[in-house]
Each structure stands twice: as structure tokens, then as C-alpha cells.
């Protein structure tokens, strides 16, 4: 078996480019999966092909020798994360996932599962690692058609040697978790596709392994059911803390599920990063083209696109300062915050103008608290309705209700169109002023004159100039 020799960590390329896998601690701290220089070549002369691959040959250059399904894959999957491998059909992702549990023997490179060497060990050892650490969910469900749903779900436990009564009970509980309580006695053929895949998921969950490999698990399902399953998977993952390696050709699915995403092309991983990184900073034209189609609204969050709040006034500031801020920012409303930057509400120019005209000293009566506020991790898709209902920018607040940014309508649209969302050169002023600038200026001048009169009269000290200057507000309000 040539693979044994090639999995040697001392193999030139593997060790020259990547850290020695044997240096990883063997116990608790090891990543869920550690993949080093993993290569799979289907063909007659693997040694020759490997040499040329190491010299940098591409897959097409080797087409005469055979197929290089996976070339030099190198990554780690952290415990408890959803790691998505994304690529079109033929990009090698199915071969890659099959090497992660030893269904395919790699031509070169090594895989460690929870710190244990998977490559180059005996078949028996590989089986033990699978049954203990790695379970799998298949594209076409791969249920045993002659067994009941319950016995299918209990299959992994059966292999682990769990006694019948215990495994039935556990299977029943997991079926309950995936929403199939009471279906245990049916045969898989009596279930719909979505339900069959729930059985597939239950089988993997019941085995209670640390790692779940999911090979295009939702690709064969209807779009509606697929969405439902994706959401359920995320919920389950948060609940159970499993490490999930998910293969898909659907970028939207990848972006929705993945904590990190590896994009594969022609057997190589061309980019590895979070959904946002891949979306906003694609590694090459291929990835860029790929992400052009993605539903950005479901990937980007408020935190990704929000701008520094510019039209912000302190609650303690008076109406004149608020009006001046709005004038400078050329906007008709401003957000009101407390000293601790906690969001109080919003004021509109007409209301403030009236206060100034009446000579009021406090903003409080003009503050409206119905300002739309959202958390930073909300997806843009959920902002549209809010954005339509409110003309003012949506305020982004952290868990302590502190203002961290705003999402104006323009920004929302710009994000979807992949226009740069960076602020600076093109400050976005929304909503536009509703009161003519001259009127505001006249009012402010009038108020100023009235103040001067008052000061001269010595009745009142006007400390309204203690306002936060707008520029400072913008800087302080920068994204945390």
C-alpha cells in the first residue's frame, strides 16, 4: 500500500509547508479534525502524479494520468464549529469528506480525528474511530430500507454494541428531538424525503459522536424543507455542541450554516474564511464570481454594514445644539443618547425647531422613543420591513442598549448591490432635511439673539454650548 509511505509526516512537501502534525497535543486540546497535505489521486501512477502536483501542476495538466480529486488540502476544524466545504460538483468535496472518516484512503497526507491518527492505521482501528468519533449523513439518506425508522436511528448504537433495549430507547429520544416522535415503527419508504433525512440525522445524532459529516445532506430536499432543516441543524448544533463538517454546492446554504467556509475548486481549497470574509474579500476571481450570486441579505449582518452614527445628540444637550447638529449633518432627525451612549430615542427637526422657537431648554418633550433598534447580529434580510416602516436610519444597539451604529436605507441597498459600504468619502445623509435650511438658520440666529438678550439681562447662564460637537459624536460612536 503506497499510501502508508506517503502519509509519513516527514514527506517533503507535507512537512516543509505545514507544521508537523505530530506536534499537536494528543488529548483534549486537539482540534476536532486536523487535515495536513491531504491529496487523493485516482489513477495508475499515483507517485508520479504526486510529484507533479507538488511541483504545482494543476488538475488539467494531470488529466492524462488520472484524476486528482483533492490536492494538498490543509485545514483544521475546531471543536463545536460548523465547517462548510463548498464547491461545484467535481471540485473534490465529496472525496475530501470521505477521507475525513477513512471511506477513501488518501494518496498522501494525514488526517487526525480528535487527536487520533486516522490515516495509515489498521482497518479495525479506522472502524473503531468512526464508530466512536465520526458519524455521517448522506445526500440520498442511505437508510436501510428493510429496517424500521427506529432501528435505522439505532444503527450506530448497534455497531457500538449498545444492548437492544437501551439503543431503542435512545433512538426514540433522538427521533423525538428531530421531530419524528411516534414514527419509529414505520419503514423509511413510508416517509417523505424531508422526514427520511431527519431519520438520517437522527441516526448520526444517536451514535453520539463528536463529529458529524454531512455530505450534501439537504441537497435532495425541496427548498422549503431544506430551509427548515438548515434552521433546525443550527439549533441542534447550538444545543448539542457537535462539530459539523458540511458539504454543499449551494453557496447560500454554506453562508447560512458555516462558521467557516472552505471554497474548493478543481481539487484545491482556494479560500478558507468566514462567510463575511469570503463575501467581502474574495480570494480570487473564481470566488468573486461565485459569491456574486449569493443572497447577501442572508449573510451580511447589521454589524457588517452599519455606519458610524453621525447625527447624534446627548439627551442633556438643548434643542439649539440638536438643531445645529442636524443642520451640519444635513439631516432631519438625530438620535438621542444618554451620557453612557445608551439610546433614548430620536428627535425630528420640525419638533426641535418648535422647541427652539418657544425657547425651551430641554429636548425631552421632542424625543420620540419609537426609533427602530436592532442587535448587531441581525441579518439584513430582516431589516427590510423595518426600513420601509421608518424613515429614520435603523439604530444598531448592543446588548446593553448602547448605540453602536446606524443602518440607513441607502446602506442597506448598497450592501446588497455589493457597492462599498465603507463610509468616509461619501457620508450618507438620511433622512433628508424637511425644513428649509434658511428657516433653521433664521430660527437659530433668532434664538441666539434672544439668548444674548437674556444673558445681557443676567437672568440665565446659557450653557448650551456644552453639546457634543457632531464630529466628536461620530468618532466616539465608531463601531465598537
Amino acid at each position: 500500500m503506497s499510501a502508508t509511505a506517503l502519509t509519513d509526516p516527514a514527506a517533503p512537501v507535507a512537512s516543509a509547508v505545514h507544521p508537523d502534525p505530530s506536534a499537536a497535543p494528543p488529548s483534549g486540546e486537539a482540534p476536532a479534525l486536523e487535515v495536513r497535505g491531504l491529496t487523493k489521486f485516482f489513477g495508475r501512477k499515483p507517485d508520479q502524479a504526486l510529484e507533479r502536483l507538488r511541483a504545482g501542476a494543476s488538475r488539467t495538466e494531470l488529466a492524462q494520468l488520472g484524476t486528482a480529486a483533492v490536492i494538498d488540502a490543509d485545514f483544521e476544524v475546531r471543536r463545536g464549529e460548523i465547517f462548510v466545504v463548498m464547491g461545484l460538483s467535481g471540485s473534490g468535496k465529496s472525496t475530501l469528506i470521505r477521507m475525513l472518516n477513512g471511506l477513501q484512503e488518501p494518496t498522501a497526507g494525514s488526517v487526525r480525528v480528535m487527536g487520533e491518527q486516522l490515516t495509515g492505521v489498521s482497518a479495525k482501528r479506522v472502524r473503531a474511530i468512526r464508530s466512536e468519533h465520526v458519524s455521517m449523513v448522506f445526500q440520498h439518506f442511505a437508510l436501510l430500507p428493510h429496517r424500521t425508522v427506529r432501528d435505522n436511528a439505532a444503527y450506530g448504537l448497534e455497531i457500538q454494541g449498545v444492548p437492544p433495549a437501551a439503543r431503542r430507547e435512545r433512538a426514540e429520544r433522538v427521533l423525538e428531538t428531530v421531530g419524528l416522535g411516534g414514527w419509529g415503527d414505520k419503514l423509511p419508504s413510508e416517509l417523505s424525503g424531508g422526514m427520511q433525512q431527519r431519520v438520517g440525522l437522527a441516526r448520526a445524532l444517536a451514535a453520539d459522536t463528536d463529529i458529524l459529516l454531512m455530505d450534501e445532506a439537504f441537497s435532495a430536499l425541496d427548498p422549503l424543507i431544506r430551509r427548515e432543516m438548515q434552521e433546525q441543524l443550527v439549533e441542534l448544533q447550538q444545543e448539542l455542541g457537535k462539530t459539523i463538517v458540511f458539504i454543499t454546492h449551494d453557496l447560500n446554504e454554506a453562508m447560512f450554516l458555516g462558521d467557516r467556509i472552505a471554497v474548493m475548486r478543481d481539487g484545491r481549497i482556494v479560500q478558507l474564511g468566514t462567510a463575511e470574509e469570503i463575501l467581502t474579500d474574495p480570494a480570487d476571481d473564481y470566488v468573486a464570481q461565485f459569491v456574486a450570486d449569493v443572497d447577501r441579505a442572508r449573510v451580511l449582518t447589521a454589524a457588517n454594514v452599519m455606519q458610524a452614527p453621525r447625527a447624534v445628540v446627548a439627551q442633556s444637550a438643548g434643542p439649539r445644539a440638536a438643531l445645529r447638529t442636524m443642520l451640519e449633518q444635513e439631516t432631519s432627525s438625530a438620535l438621542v443618547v444618554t451620557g453612557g451612549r445608551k439610546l433614548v430615542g430620536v428627535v425630528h427637526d420640525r419638533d426641535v425647531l418648535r422647541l427652539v422657537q418657544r425657547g425651551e431648554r430641554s429636548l425631552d418633550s421632542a424625543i420620540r422613543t419609537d426609533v427602530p433598534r436592532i442587535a448587531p447580529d441581525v441579518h439584513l434580510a430582516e431589516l427590510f420591513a423595518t426600513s420601509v416602516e421608518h424613515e429614520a436610519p435603523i439604530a444598531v444597539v448592543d446588548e446593553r442598549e448602547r448605540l453602536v451604529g446606524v443602518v440607513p436605507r441607502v446602506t442597506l441597498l448598497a450592501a446588497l448591490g455589493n457597492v462599498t459600504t465603507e463610509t468616509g468619502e461619501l457620508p450618507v445623509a438620511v433622512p433628508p432635511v424637511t425644513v428649509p435650511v434658511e428657516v433653521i438658520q433664521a430660527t437659530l440666529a433668532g434664538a441666539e439673539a434672544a439668548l444674548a438678550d437674556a444673558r445681557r439681562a443676567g437672568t440665565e447662564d446659557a450653557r448650551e454650548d456644552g453639546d457634543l460637537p457632531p464630529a466628536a459624536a461620530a468618532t466616539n460612536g465608531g463601531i465598537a
Partner: protein
Amino acid sequence: MDGFRIPVGDWAEAVVEFLTDTLGGFFAVIRTIFDGFYDGLEAVLTVPPFWIVILALAAVAWLAKGWKFAVGTAVGLLVIVGVDQWENAMSTLALVLVASLVAIAIAIPVGILAARSDAASRVIRPILDFMQTMPAMVYLIPALILFRVGVVPGIIATIVFAMAPGVRLTELGIRGVDREVVEAGQAFGSSPGRILRQIQLPLAMPSIMAGVNQVIMLALSMVVIAGMVGAGGLGGQVVQSLGRIDVALGFEAGLSVVILAIILDRATGAFGNGWTAPWTRRKAASKQDVAPSPVPEREPALVA
């Protein structure tokens, strides 16, 4: 062309001679075993009064398919009694069953081997072609030499002739099992033996049973030829009628073969197509309305 002659025939003769000389004892043992096997089965079928045997066979038919088939079986067997071929028919049935059992016992493991190893498959396939296409009577000659006249050379020739579809359909069935389901077994840490027992064989069962059906049908078609070497039974009757140009006898014996063939085919076919016990049949049938069985309906094949 003169002078160019490949002495293949001589080589075959030499091989058979060598076998007789060195393995004579071994063949004697096989002869004894098969003889005993056949005699026992024949006794079970012929010693009791014919109506008891008919009732028993009708009961098997009921188990297999239901009361309609049971009635048909009984009527068919009564026709055989009516044309005075009962004992011959039972001898033939015993011969077919013994040969089929042995052929299946060999064919299924060989088929499994062929399914698991491409190399084995490449070796086995041409051998099967040879066994199946070589004129059946040719087997009788070495069988006669090795086992002497009687029922045993007939059984051996029948086994060789009938085995091929059993191997082929077993291999086909196992190779046809959804690769993903087998992978599922592997992915959960199942051993190869366990995957064979729990996944591959159960899922290949319709195909394997089709193979069993074919083996039995081919065995039945071989009995007439086996009659030539003294295997007796219906085959003996046919050979006799051929010698005497006796149309009446020939037709009666032939008709009996056809009746046996139909009964055997329908019975094994039923066991192959997702068989359920008669007492659970109604419930199973209503289940099938909800979700049609993934097993495709197999056209009943009749070779006789």
C-alpha cells in the same frame, strides 16, 4: 488444414482419466452422499399415499401465494396422478430439489465472492459462460465415467448446468445495492462481514431469489437429459417414448414436466417478491397502497 489439429478433446479425456485414477475414492464418496440424499427425498415424496403428498404441497403453495395457488397446485398434481406419472414426477421433483439445493449452496457464496472482488469476478465470469453454453449432454459423458450410470451423474450434470444464473444474479444483486447505503454501514464503523449480512444480502434478496428461481427452472429443463443416463423419472419416460415413437407417453410425461415447472416457478417467484406470511397478508397489502415497495415486480420466468 491437414495436419493442423489441436487435440483439445484428448486433453479433456486425459483430465477425466486422471481424475478417475487419482480421485476415484473421492467421487465414490460424493456418489454415496448424493445417492443417499436423493433416495431419502424420493422416499418422502413417494412412500406416503399420493393425496397426503398433494395436500402437503398444496399447503406449501398456500404459504407461498395463497389459496388460489394452492387449489391450482392440487389440481395440477391430480392431473399428473391421472396420467399415471405420479411416481416418476416425484422422482423428478426429488432430483430437481437435490440438484438445485446443491447448486444454490455453491452459487450464492461464489456470487458473493464475485461481487466483492473484481479479480474473482473476472475469473468466474468466463467459467460461467462455459458452463452455461456447453451443450448439457456433454457433461453427461465425464459424469457417467466418474459416477457410473444412475441418478448421480444426472444430478451432477444438472448442478453444473443450472448453477450459473445463481452466481450471476447474486453478484448482480450485491453489486446493485445502493453504494451510499453500504457507505453508511462503513461510516458507522460496521465490519465488512456485518455489512454483508445486514445490508448487502437483505437488499440483494430479490435478485438472489430470482437467481434461485432460475436455477430451479434450469434444473427442471435438465432432467429430461438426465433421463438418458438412467436418472429415471419423467426424463426416463420421455427418453423411452422417444425410443418407441410413443406420442401418448411422450405427451403425458411432457405435460407432467410442464405442470411441475409452473408450480415450482410460481412458488419460488412468490418467495422472491417480498414474501409475507398468509396470516399477515391483508395488512401488508394495505400498507403497499400507501407506499409502493421499492422492489420492482419481476416478470415470472418459465423455462421448461
